[in-house]
């Protein structure tokens, strides 16, 4: 069992959540309550990481973050290190490939809040922020929790993008999924097997939790 890699994966998943959840809640709330021409394109763009091969995303991210791109050079000047092949680079990649996993459950949850609930809140004189904090977020929490759980598990497991953008540097970009690949090549089946089992269990728990949460949202919707 490679604890360095497991710890690194946990850090990556937490950093991703920290950066992604506020963004996802804002985008999901906006998409849930507004209708406009071209909305399908925005939603499609956000869902793209679901169908795009990870290597395609990895390739574009590598080109965008590498030392030869303007963005890569700007970040290097700012932070003193390149974004590609670094932990911060993995966070950027992770936020992007997790967008659909975070936005979609939250959007569904906001969509499930009946419009008259929002109108009632307005009639009671609540400001937008008060209504969001006291009424909408509490109602949407199963979606938000589901998004958090899916993002966390998906970050632990992502392989292609992480390998291309991060390389395979122990303690810096070698996540647990990459460590399994590396240990297999090292004929270290004990470690590869233990880490695979760990990811299997985490994935199973994730699916069970998010199905349970979806169920809860559905039941709530059926109530009068």
């Amino acid at each position, binding site marked *: 069992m490679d604890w360095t890699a497991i710890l690194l994966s946990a*850090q990556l998943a937490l*950093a991703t959540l*920290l*950066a992604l959840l506020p*963004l996802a809640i804002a985008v999901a709330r906006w998409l849930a309550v507004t209708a406009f021409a071209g909305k399908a394109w925005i939603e499609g763009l956000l869902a793209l990481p679901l169908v795009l091969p990870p290597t395609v995303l990895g390739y574009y991210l*590598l080109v965008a973050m*590498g*030392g*030869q791109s303007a963005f*890569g050079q700007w970040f*290097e000047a*700012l*932070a*003193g*290190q*390149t974004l*590609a*092949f*670094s*932990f*911060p680079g993995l*966070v*950027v990649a992770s*936020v992007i490939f997790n967008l659909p996993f975070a936005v979609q459950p939250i959007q569904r949850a906001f969509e499930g809040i009946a419009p008259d609930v929002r109108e009632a809140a307005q009639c009671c004189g609540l400001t937008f922020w008060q209504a969001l904090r006291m009424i909408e977020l509490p109602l949407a929490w199963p979606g938000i929790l589901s998004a958090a759980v899916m993002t966390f598990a998906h970050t632990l497991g992502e392989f292609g993008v992480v390998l291309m953008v991060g*390389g*395979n*540097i*122990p*303690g*810096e970009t*070698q996540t647990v999924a990459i460590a399994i690949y*590396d240990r*297999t*090549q*090292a*004929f*270290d089946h004990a470690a590869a097997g233990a880490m695979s089992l760990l990811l299997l269990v985490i994935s199973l728990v994730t699916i069970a939790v998010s199905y349970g949460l979806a169920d809860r949202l559905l039941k709530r919707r059926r109530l009068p």
Partner: protein
Amino acid sequence: MLAVLLLAVEVSGAWAGPALVAAAADLRFALTELAQRFQDDTGQTVKLSFGSSGTFTHQIAQGAPFELFLSADEGYVFRLADAGLTADRGTLYAIGRLVVFAPHGSPLAVDGALVGLRAALAEGKIKRFAIANPEHAPYGRAARDALVHAGLWDAVSRHLVIGENASQAMQFAAAGASQGGIVPLSLSKAGEVAKLGRFALLPAERHGEEPLRQRMVLLRHAGDTARAFYAFLQAAPARAVLTRYGFLLPGDPAP
């Protein structure tokens, strides 16, 4: 978003830590042992990443933070040196050698002239045969050269399984899913692998024209730990370990 990123830069703080070393995959067992010995001797640590030399060359050119690069082929080192990314033109540290490897239970008879491979191919007994990717893994290029040299390339090519690097090719060759492969001696000799099958050395003249001249180089921003490890690898105890893993060393008489 940017705040989280800069925080992540602070937290990860990699550069004060151990030296980052990129190493050709044929060194996986030998260099792991040497890094442990270096740590025992000096108290300094290195972090090893293994992969194909071509992939590392691309990553270093893109700004990967490695401090020392041990290539399986000096051409890649010279390419980085020409691009101004290295401290100098590096040092030749070993000559790599190839074996033909057959896992237990394989119908392939192993020998240095590839007579057994020729016979097994003719009899249709080879379903899968592993080499590393000739495009960016030097051992894959050398394996292809050896097969071309033996006149077996056309016969074997539709049976090839291609490892991303030499140690993945070794894994394909030894794990039992293939009938064998042409892989590094340095991996085949390691205890974990040697027990999985039999192997025979391919004589140097069978590699084709280009020997596997393995060169290492310090990158421009290498720190003190990386420099110490670079010196350690050129000293007698490290050379003895490399010899034990089957490498020929520059300056040693040919065996």
